[in-house]
């Protein structure tokens, strides 16, 4: 049996816990606590990390980690990213400056993202369309990065599965050159 891990990161309220709950085989172990940040309309939020798991038919396990969303926990991001298969960045488009949020995670995971497969999921785009998917593509291009960018509603399991499927495509592409 082998164990692997996938990371899901994002700002407070972006839906990391919900995304893990959508696909995990076990009830996620959460470390949510009462939110005292008055700028965020959310009663509870992740301050440590969330944990879920997928048990595969060959006995392997995929551990799902939701990282703490606040930048002050960025020391944990690097630790969690070690030996991870890939990273999902969840963006909440309803926040005041979602492009700055993306930049924060790109900076926080900068040393890993040169090799770590990554996909960006943008939530609440339907109700907050001012920042478009193309704006995110522009922001990534300015850093010389190209990652898939998808709209996502983490309450919908199909959306979360699609996000993971896209991440798997990124991983597969990294081992593609033994093909004809």
């Amino acid at each position, binding site marked *: 049996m*082998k164990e*692997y891990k996938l990371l899901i990161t994002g700002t407070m309220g972006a839906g990391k816990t919900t995304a893990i709950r959508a*696909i995990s085989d076990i009830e996620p172990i959460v470390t949510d606590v009462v939110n005292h940040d008055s700028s965020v309309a959310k009663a509870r939020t992740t301050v440590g990390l969330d944990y879920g798991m*997928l*048990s*595969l*038919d*060959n006995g*392997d396990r*995929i551990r799902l980690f939701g990282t703490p969303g606040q930048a002050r926990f960025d020391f944990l991001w690097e630790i969690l990213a070690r030996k991870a298969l890939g990273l999902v960045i969840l963006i909440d488009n309803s926040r005041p400056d979602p492009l700055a949020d993306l930049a924060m995670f790109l900076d926080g995971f900068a040393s890993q993202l040169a*090799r770590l*497969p990554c*996909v960006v999921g943008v939530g609440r785009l339907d109700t907050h369309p001012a920042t*478009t*998917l*193309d704006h*995110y*593509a*522009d922001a*990534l*291009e300015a850093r010389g990065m*190209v*990652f*898939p*960018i*998808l709209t996502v509603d983490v309450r919908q399991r199909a959306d979360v*599965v699609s996000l*993971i*499927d*896209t991440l*798997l*495509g*990124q*991983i*597969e*592409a*990294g*081992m*593609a*050159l*033994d*093909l*004809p």
Partner: protein
Amino acid sequence: MELRLGTINLEPKDLAYVRALVRLFAHTEKLSWSFADAAPYHAVVADPGARAANPGFFAAFEGLVLTLGHLPGQSAADTVAYPIRANQFRDWLKLRQDSLRELLHRSDTPAMQPVMEIAQVVSTAAPSPALVKTSQAGRRYKLRRWPPADLLRGDSGAMRMATFMSRNALSMAQLAALTGQPEDTCASFVAVLHAANLLVEVVAAELAPETAVAEQAAPVRRGLMASLRRHLGI
């Protein structure tokens, strides 16, 4: 009824782009247009030079000729400026498809005749799909930017091809093998990306050294990916 779209004197890159977009929209938008290498045509896409040289000739077929680039005095409705935007081209195809169908339903209107005549007097230099595919053989492409949303339009096949090319420089054969898409579909999509200046071509010597490590791990990882997809019901 299938509608035939031809081209007049387009640059090879524009020709490849138009051809690829027509194929893409036939799939994603269910448009009735198909790209035709030879006459007769129901409508054509023309180079501005050809139009400028024969203004009277083209004026007789107003509404059925889309000109790339801007010509003074020409209706903006039948012009797509450079760089060619996929959504504008799609909108023009939709509009002309609707108007042609309406005309065809009037039995006393010889709606198709004028454009067929254009097709017979104006030669085109469209390379065959086989030629386009051959010209891309052996080349590897990587995305320089994630494609605009109006190009992908949520199409799962296009998203998958873009995902693979966002991570690694791939040949057409590799892209087809990884995505399960036919090589022709991959070639069309690559032509669209190429024309939109979204690709970089990578030669073998420039490939990253970690590729060798990735290749060694590939069989194990592929099994893992397949198992994970099964588990998620993909």
